[in-house]
């Protein structure tokens, strides 16, 4: 009974199922019928139409990379330009055996182990259909020799590429910067900013300095070309094209000649110099020593050169003016003086007897003056001229750290200056609040004492120091420092000047300014700490010397002991502006481990001022000093590798 009903049920169900299957089969046939009809329509009725389209379809769109803008100094001297070179490029996807092909190419043109290594590295980063340079800078002979044999190498081509070149080599390498191959991080950034499509076909991008900061202007607008291609994929005919718009030229505020004089004045010594036109913020010279050759980076730097640069004890890759941080030492005193005067303290004729040391009330600890026995009776003007420590110890304590720090902050200490170069650091203007946050410790009165002479936690960049000096020279008005004066459209030749902007204004009473400026002039007169600097000068100089103790020796212990001792020497600092009455140039100089500011850094400043104000070129440089092969700035941050 049960089995019969099951059987019946089964038959019924199978019957029902088969009806459904039949419906499904019908749907399949209808759908395939539609498909067949569509294909019939496309391939017979529309055949002619699509046949013509297929013929016309042998068109491909190729990007045309714009010429990168030039970088010129203020007088039109070329600092960065482009030139065409032949490169031998290989598309891995079109080559059967890449290694064998390279071996074969090596018989025609020289392919070094280094070329091979670089190629492999690029190949790993690229898609197989991308054309990758194997050899660059082919000579005419090599190019011709390969061209004759080209038929043997499908997938290998000679291309003419635009290369960046820095004709002045290492001159000003830290502010000009360099370009390098676009890497993944750059691509990400371009995608975010929406500029990716404009970089189709571009291989390089600014990696540092002006090249990086003004990348948008320098790059230009990529054009495109519609090309008819033959069955092998080679372009036969250009059908239409949109011309690229070449990148803008960048005109620097810097005078390359002045820059060279400044760099030469350093000789082999390490350090930094920044010279600024106080009235408009134009940077006139920007030195970071030692320098490096930016041409090394354009093509992808080789490991050995990179290692040599990156691991050098002299740290040539550090952009010292904006990333090197140093205690300002006594160059801080004019600013501390203004803080005091502004608070109504120490106005002349106020004076103190200097016993050669200072003690905090209720303490016996003696803060020593640099001159044992002291300077005798000292007023504000003399205190600056002879760099009296005792005077400023007392002033700092009298003002209190908060008031002092607040006032010094107006001069830009402890914050970025806003210069048009990326990577600037803040420096440090210490306050009790900072110390509590950073070290979770309370502030001791003794720490205020030494801030008065620019020691302790205080750290400045050479650019900050130059900028503060320029502000002082410009009667308290801060102009934004900049290394680029104008952006020039290549096509029209029209220059768009970079506007000079007032960043800040500190209200300083003219009589206070006068006291400090006169005192700084006294520095360069007989009896002052930098009397020798102004010897024979037809213009009046205002200056301040400084000596910064090298701290943080611990970091150096990994170095050779002998070196440590030598590199232990103080940093020499020097700030100045001239002419006194109508300042045209303000500058800050730091010579690392140079000893005393007046004798080590002063003469460099003088050479720069002489050329800038008088057009006077220095005598041929003296034979290089050899004793001074030493340390990096102790607080200088580790530079990140900038190559790929």
């Amino acid at each position, binding site marked *: 009974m049960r089995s019969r009903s099951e059987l019946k049920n089964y038959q019924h*169900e*199978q019957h*029902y*199922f*088969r009806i*459904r*299957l039949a419906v*499904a*089969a019908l749907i*399949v*046939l209808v*759908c*395939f019928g*539609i*498909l*067949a009809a*569509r*294909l*019939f329509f*496309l*391939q*017979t009725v*529309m*055949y002619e*139409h*699509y*046949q013509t*389209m*297929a013929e016309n*379809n*042998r068109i491909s*769109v190729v990007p045309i990379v714009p010429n990168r803008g030039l970088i010129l100094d203020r007088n039109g001297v070329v600092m960065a330009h482009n030139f065409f070179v032949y490169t031998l490029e290989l598309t891995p996807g079109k080559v059967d055996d890449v290694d064998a092909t390279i071996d074969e190419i090596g018989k025609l043109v020289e392919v070094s182990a280094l070329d091979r290594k670089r190629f492999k590295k690029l190949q790993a980063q690229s898609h197989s259909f991308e054309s990758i340079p194997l050899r660059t800078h082919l000579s005419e002979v090599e190019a011709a020799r390969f061209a004759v044999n080209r038929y043997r190498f499908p997938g290998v081509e000679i291309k003419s590429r635009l290369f960046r070149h820095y004709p002045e080599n290492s001159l000003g390498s830290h502010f000009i910067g360099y370009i390098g191959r676009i890497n993944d991080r750059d691509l990400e950034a371009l995608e975010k900013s929406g500029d990716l499509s404009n970089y189709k076909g571009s291989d390089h991008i600014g990696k540092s300095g002006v090249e990086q900061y003004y990348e948008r202007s320098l790059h230009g607008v990529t054009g495109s070309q519609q090309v008819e*291609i033959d*069955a092998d*994929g080679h372009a036969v005919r250009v059908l239409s094209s949109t011309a690229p718009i070449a990148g803008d030229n960048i005109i620097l505020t810097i005078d390359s000649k002045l820059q060279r004089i400044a760099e030469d004045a350093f000789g082999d010594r390490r350090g930094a110099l920044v010279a600024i036109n106080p009235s408009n913020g134009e940077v006139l010279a920007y030195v970071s020593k030692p320098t490096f050759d930016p041409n090394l980076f354009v093509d992808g730097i080789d490991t050995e050169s990179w290692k040599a640069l990156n691991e050098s004890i002299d740290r040539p890759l550090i952009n010292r003016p904006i990333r090197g941080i140093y205690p300002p030492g006594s160059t801080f005193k004019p600013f501390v003086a203004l803080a005091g005067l502004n608070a109504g303290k120490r106005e002349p004729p106020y004076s103190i007897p200097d016993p050669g040391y200072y003690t905090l009330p209720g303490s016996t600890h003696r803060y020593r003056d640099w001159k044992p026995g002291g300077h005798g009776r000292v007023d504000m003007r003399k205190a600056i001229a002879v760099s009296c420590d005792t005077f400023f110890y007392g002033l700092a304590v009298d003002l209190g750290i908060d008031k002092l720090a607040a006032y010094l902050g107006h001069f830009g200490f402890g914050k970025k200056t806003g210069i048009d170069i990326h990577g600037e650091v803040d420096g440090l203007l210490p306050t009790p609040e900072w110390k509590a946050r950073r070290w979770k410790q309370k502030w001791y009165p003794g720490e205020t004492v030494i801030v008065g002479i620019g020691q302790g936690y205080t750290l400045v960049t050479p650019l900050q120091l130059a900028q503060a000096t320029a502000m002082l020279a410009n009667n308290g008005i801060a102009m934004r420092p900049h290394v680029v004066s104008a952006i020039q459209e290549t096509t029209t030749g029209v220059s768009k000047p970079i506007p000079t902007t007032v960043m800040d204004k500190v209200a300083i009473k003219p009589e206070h300014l006068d006291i400090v400026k006169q005192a700084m002039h006294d520095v360069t007169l007989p009896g002052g700490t930098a009397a020798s600097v102004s010897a024979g000068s037809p213009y009046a100089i205002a200056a301040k010397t400084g000596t910064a103790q090298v701290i943080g020796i611990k970091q150096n212990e990994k170095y050779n002991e002998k070196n440590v001792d030598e590199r232990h020497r103080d940093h020499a600092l020097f700030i100045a502006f001239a002419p006194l009455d109508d300042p045209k140039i303000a500058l800050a100089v730091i010579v690392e481990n140079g000893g005393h500011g007046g004798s080590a850094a002063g003469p460099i400043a003088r050479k720069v001022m002489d050329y800038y104000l008088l057009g006077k070129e220095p005598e041929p440089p003296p034979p290089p000093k050899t004793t001074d092969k030493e340390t990096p700035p102790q607080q200088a941050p580790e530079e990140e590798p900038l190559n790929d």
Partner: protein
Amino acid sequence: MISNLFKYVTKHVDSFLMGCLVMTLVVGFAVLYSASGQDMDRIFSQSVNLIVALAFMWIAANIPPQHLERIALPLYALGLLLLVGVALFGELSHGARRWLHLGVAKIQPSELMKIAVPMMLAWYFSKREESLRFPDYLIAALLLAIPVVLIVKQPDLGTALLIAASGFYVLFLAGLSWKLLVGGGVLAGASLPIFWSMLHDYQRKRIEILFDPYQDPLGAGYHTIQATIALGSGGIGGKGWLRGTQSQLDFLPERTTDFIFAVFGEEFGLVGNLLLLTLFTLIIARGLVIASQAQNTFSRLLAGSVTLTFFTYVFVNMGMVSGILPVVGVPLPLISYGGTSLVTLLLGFGILMSIQTHKKLVTT
């Protein structure tokens, strides 16, 4: 001895189906060779894929359907678990989360679901066949909807579509009432705007451009335009093997995978297309015959669903290449380059063979 071995190997292989499959695969390799620009590496790696897929097919063909019935539920549960795993820990690539790293291997659980979902639904209906009521269809729909939604979210519209189709076919064959079907159709039509609002921008764009590919000739419409040019310029007789200008000159994107049919159509013309369509029709016809002869509900439903899903593959791919359906990422079965889909497809055919060749063992 050798003939014994041959017998053993072919015992559960359906010769008619196998014959059609082999012919289609041969065509596939010929087209792949042309589409890849005569790349022997491609051919080699596709051969490896094929060997693996054939092994899976053979194993499936040798498992009796009642064993398949037993693993339906655990397989479905495992697939669901892995899909949740993908949603949580999946590897993100090209904006989609489809792959799951399992220590040694990377797997794409949505592929597993292509087999597991019809198996599960077929199992469910075979369990409930004595007392099938309306709520059972609801439960079945839910069993189908969960994996589909998870896959849509990945997002992988092509796969979700195929799985939804495979599940729908089970419901349809199990006897979902015509009233409900028509009602559902109307409801689906009404909910189209909601569906539209749920789509990703790129998916919407694809549909818009389907109606007017010239809206974006260098962007999203490029695929469709180039593919129709390739097909149309093939004419009746085709341009000849390795002679398709569209295909050989790099104009055709994804020409070894989703758009391989355009290469075939350009080089072999309308004649080739109709022959290929006939081959596919034969395969489908054989599948439907196997389904109609199957001896229990589970086998019937599973065989019917596997066959009709294969049809969906073919129709959706050829439809999108010839410009009558939107571009969704569905490969042309047995022809497109790629290991995963080949394995799933041949596994399905293995199940069909198992259902066909184990028949006598079931009946008494």
